[in-house]
C-alpha cells in the first residue's frame, strides 16, 4: 500500500536501528514518551523495542481518547442509549468500555439501540434515513477527530435535521501534556508527538514543551520507520544540545496545521471549564462542548444525563499506565482479571490502549528471567 509499505522496509529499519545505537551514550538511559495511542500500537505490533538499545526506554502516554474517558461518561452514554426512541451511534472502539454497570455492548444486549458507525457523517445519514428515531452520536477524539464532528454539526444545521445530536467528549492535547510535564518527579526526557493531531493543530502548538519544559519533541508518523526515524532525530537533538520541535511526518503535517479544520471546530464547539480524565483527574479547559448556537444538537441539552462521577475500580491502574508511571504488565490485574475479552480498564479496551497493544503483541517478547539464569550457568563451547 502506497505511503505505508515503504515505511515498513526492514532494510531502512536496520539502518535506523544502527544509527540509534551509535547515538546513545552507553549506560545513559533516555526515557522517551510517545503520547499517541496509535504510536503505542505500532511499537508493540512491530516489536520496535527489540530494535532499540537498552538505553532507549519507551514510556506510554495518555493520547488514547477512548482510554481517558471516565466511567461516568460511559454511564451517561448508556443512559442516552436506553432512552425510548433513541439510537446511539458510536465508534466501534467504545462498545466494550466498561461503565459502572457494564458497557454499551452489554446495554445493547439488554435492548438499547446502539449502532457502530465509521464516521459522524454516517450517524447523520442514519438520522435522515430514520426520522422516527433520534440519533445521538457519541463523539470522542482529540483535535484529529473534532473537525469531523464539527463539519457534521454544520451539515446537520444546514440540512435542518431535527432528530440528531452529539454527546461531545472531544478532548484537547495540550492540557494532558502539561499535566504530565508538571508531575513532580517526572522522568521523561523527550517526546514523540502525535502525528494526526498535528495535521490539524500544526507543530508550533508544541513549542511550549521545549520552551517551557526543556524537552525536545519530534512529531512522528505511524509506521515503524517513522517512529525509528523520530527516535533518531530526538537522540541527534540531545547529542547536539538542541531542544526544539521537529517534524518527521512531513509528508502529512505542516507547521501551521489545517486552518479550515481549526475554524470549523471553533465555529461549533468551545472549551469546557473542566473535564475529568481517567488517570489525570479533572483538567481545566481540556475538552470541548457544543456551542449554544448549535444547542439543538447538544445531547447534554437534549437529554438529562446522570452526570455522576464514578471512581475507577480499586484494582485498576489505568491512570498510572496512561501517565507512563508503570508498564502494562506491572498492573496486578493485567492479563488475569483484565483482558481484552473482559476488560476492567480502558487501557485494555481500546485497540490503541497500551495494555491491549501489549497483550496482543508484546507479551511473548518479555524475557523469561528463569531461562536466562539457567543459560548463564551452563557452560558453552564458545567463549
Amino acid at each position, binding site marked *: *500500500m*502506497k505511503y505505508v509499505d515503504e515505511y515498513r522496509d526492514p532494510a531502512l529499519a536496520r539502518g*535506523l536501528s544502527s544509527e540509534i545505537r551509535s547515538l546513545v551514550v552507553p549506560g545513559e538511559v533516555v526515557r522517551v514518551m510517545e503520547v499517541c495511542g496509535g504510536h503505542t500500537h505500532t511499537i508493540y505490533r512491530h516489536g520496535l523495542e527489540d530494535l532499540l538499545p537498552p538505553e532507549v526506554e519507551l514510556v506510554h502516554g495518555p493520547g488514547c481518547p477512548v482510554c481517558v474517558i471516565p466511567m461516568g461518561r460511559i454511564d451517561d452514554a448508556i443512559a442516552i442509549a436506553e432512552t425510548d426512541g433513541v439510537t446511539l451511534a458510536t465508534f466501534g472502539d467504545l462498545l466494550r468500555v466498561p461503565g459502572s454497570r457494564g458497557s454499551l455492548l452489554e446495554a445493547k444486549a439488554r435492548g438499547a439501540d446502539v449502532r457502530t458507525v465509521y464516521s459522524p457523517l454516517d450517524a447523520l445519514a442514519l438520522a435522515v434515513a430514520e426520522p422516527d428515531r433520534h440519533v445521538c452520536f457519541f463523539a470522542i477524539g482529540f483535535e484529529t477527530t473534532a473537525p*469531523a464532528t464539527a463539519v457534521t454539526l454544520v451539515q446537520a444545521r444546514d440540512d435542518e435535521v431535527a432528530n440528531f445530536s452529539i454527546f461531545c467528549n472531544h478532548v484537547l492535547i495540550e492540557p494532558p501534556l502539561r499535566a504530565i510535564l508538571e508531575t513532580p518527579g517526572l522522568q521523561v526526557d523527550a517526546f514523540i508527538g502525535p502525528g494526526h493531531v498535528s495535521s490539524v493543530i500544526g507543530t508550533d502548538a508544541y513549542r511550549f514543551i521545549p520552551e517551557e519544559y526543556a524537552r525536545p519533541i519530534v512529531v512522528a508518523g505511524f509506521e515503524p520507520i517513522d517512529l525509528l526515524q523520530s527516535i533518531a532525530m530526538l537522540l541527534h537533538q540531545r547529542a547536539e544540545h538542541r531542544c526544539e520541535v521537529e517534524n518527521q511526518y*512531513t*509528508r502529512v503535517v505542516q507547521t501551521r496545521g489545517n486552518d*479550515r479544520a481549526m475554524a470549523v471546530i471553533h465555529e461549533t464547539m468551545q472549551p469546557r471549564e473542566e473535564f475529568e480524565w481517567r488517570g489525570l483527574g479533572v483538567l481545566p479547559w481540556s475538552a470541548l462542548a457544543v456551542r449554544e448556537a448549535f444547542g439543538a444538537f447538544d445531547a447534554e441539552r437534549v437529554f438529562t444525563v446522570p452526570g455522576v462521577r464514578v471512581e475507577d475500580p480499586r484494582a485498576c491502574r489505568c491512570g498510572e499506565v496512561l501517565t507512563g508511571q508503570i508498564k502494562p504488565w506491572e498492573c496486578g490485574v493485567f492479563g488475569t482479571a483484565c483482558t481484552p475479552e473482559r476488560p476492567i480498564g480502558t487501557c485494555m479496551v481500546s485497540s490503541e490502549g497500551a495494555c491491549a497493544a501489549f497483550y496482543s503483541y508484546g507479551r511473548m517478547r518479555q524475557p523469561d528471567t528463569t531461562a536466562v539464569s539457567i543459560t548463564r550457568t551452563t557452560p558453552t563451547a564458545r567463549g
Partner: protein
Amino acid sequence: MCLGIPGQIVEIPDRAAGLAVVDISGVRRSVSIALVDEPALPLEPDDWVLIHVGFALGRIDEEQARDTLDLLRRGAELEQELDVIRRGTIA
C-alpha cells in the same frame, strides 16, 4: 482514534457538497473533502489524502514522502558502511 490511512481520490462527483470518491487500499468510499479542498488549490483525481473517520484531513505531499525515503535509504547505506568499518579489525 489516531488511525488515518492514505487514500487516493478517484473522482469528485459533487465538489459543491464537498464529497469525493476515494480509493482506500482497494476499498472505495465517499469521503468528505470539505477540510482540504480549496478554490485556490483544488483536489484532483489521483491526489493522495489522509483519511480519518470519513474525512480527508490533509494532503499527502508526494515530494516530501520521496525525499524522506531517499534520505533514509542513503542513511541506511551509510550505516551499513559504518557498521562494516566498526566491526572490521585493523591488522
